């Protein structure tokens, strides 16, 4: 157990630093995907037109390709991509992209359409009367979205959102292959130099299982709060 100690003798500090990278990565990527997914859901609400078609092509690509491939693409080619995006605005710069932010962007790119589709489905499932009632009360459009439709849709989409969170969390494990020193990379170094793979990979498994369980628990408690006054019996 001394191998897990904090400091020079053990690998505790390395593992902890790796876990912190993993957590940050997952949280940033998920938050970005949630924001972009919400926008995408609203923009592609009607199943026809240009926006819908563009959204579909994007979703098809993002869900049909491994996230590691996208991570590599943004890591190796991110500088070029950002440069190409900035040139039309008269900015001729080539910012360097860190592996961490390449991974955040890549995971967000992949998971945005999943969340968008969940939310779009949920918006369609909010009873039509809600929109009509708000319109009849002449609530401004922005407030209809923020105050009436999105909160109810979020409640409906919540379980799906939690599922995607767990999938994304486990997907972050691949970033070590792109050279990021996350938890997996730390465990690999530790097990390689100590020849104790069971110990260190075991710690990683326990971390992922417990962290996912803890966040699900937290989410469920939050979901019950969201459900208050709607369906008291439904968790």
């Amino acid at each position, binding site marked *: 157990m001394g191998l897990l100690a904090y400091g020079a003798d053990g690998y505790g500090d390395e593992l902890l630093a790796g876990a912190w990278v993993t957590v940050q990565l997952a949280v940033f990527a998920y938050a970005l995907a949630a924001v972009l997914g919400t926008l995408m859901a609203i923009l592609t609400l009607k199943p026809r037109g240009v926006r819908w078609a563009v959204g579909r092509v994007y979703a098809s690509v993002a869900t049909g390709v491994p996230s590691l491939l996208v991570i*590599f693409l943004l890591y190796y080619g991110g500088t070029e991509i950002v440069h190409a995006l900035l040139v039309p605005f008269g900015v001729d710069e080539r910012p360097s992209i860190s592996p961490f932010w390449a991974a955040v962007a890549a995971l967000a790119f992949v998971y945005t359409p999943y969340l968008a*589709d969940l939310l779009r489905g949920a918006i369609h499932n909010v009873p039509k009367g809600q929109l009509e009632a708000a319109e009849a009360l002449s609530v401004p459009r922005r407030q209809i979205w923020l105050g009436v439709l999105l909160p109810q849709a979020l409640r409906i989409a919540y379980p799906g959102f939690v599922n995607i969170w767990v999938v994304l969390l*486990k997907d972050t494990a*691949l970033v070590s*292959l792109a050279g990021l020193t996350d938890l997996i990379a730390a465990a*690999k170094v530790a097990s390689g130099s100590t020849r104790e793979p069971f110990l260190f990979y075991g710690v*990683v498994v326990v971390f992922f299982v417990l962290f996912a369980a803890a966040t699900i628990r937290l989410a469920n408690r939050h979901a019950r709060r969201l459900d208050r006054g709607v369906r008291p019996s439904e968790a």
Partner: protein
Amino acid sequence: MSFDFALAWDSMPALLNGAWMTVLITASVMAVGAVLGFGMCLVRMSRNRVLAAVGAAYVAVFRGAPSIVLLYLVYAGLPQLSIVRDTPLWVLFASPLFCAILGLGLNHSAYVVEILRGALSAVPPGPVEAALALGLSPRLVFLKVRLPIAVRYGLKAYQNEVLIFLKSTVAVGAVTIADLTGAANEIFSMTYDPFTPLVTAGAMYWAMTNSLRLAFEALDRRLNRHLAAGVPDSRPATARRADPGSALFRRLRRSPAKPAE
């Protein structure tokens, strides 16, 4: 930022080689997952408390762990056990391909257990009771009534899982196997062209996931042809809904099934 068609063409053989490895691994893992998943599902659903707990632990560990960790565990961990190191098993575990298939298979099978278990418990008791009342043996009732209905219920969830794990096979790079992503990476490191090999490989992955999806949908239509047009779909919601990503595209193909004559 440009796509080099000449390079893409020249990389084809190497990429196709990698793609073949990805297909091989995917097919093998599906086979391993089906066998292990079915077996462990019976264990998980056993009336024996100890067996059921073993099944639950199996699912919790192998489903909760990222597959890349399972790969490392099988590849680096198991050869340390004397039962592996000092027996002919060593030959198997010295092969990265075997380890990759086993590691991914463990992960995939844990999902199969949960999908199958959910589907089996969603089968309504009525048809099962009717079969029992006709004097059929419980084994036959399970194999010919409960399981076929469950397979139809679980197919969508299974499709989602297979598509997700096909994409997660990129993890085999961790145990030195050159799959499609590995091949693209290799070409990048030789040419320093960040786009061409990765985009080409991405297109190949896209073609694979979508062919697999179409195959599953054809199977689904075939198995569920008993759901006639205009008849309410009585399957549980989980059986009808695929993952959000593919649900987008499924909407397009939902043409009404023709009623059988």
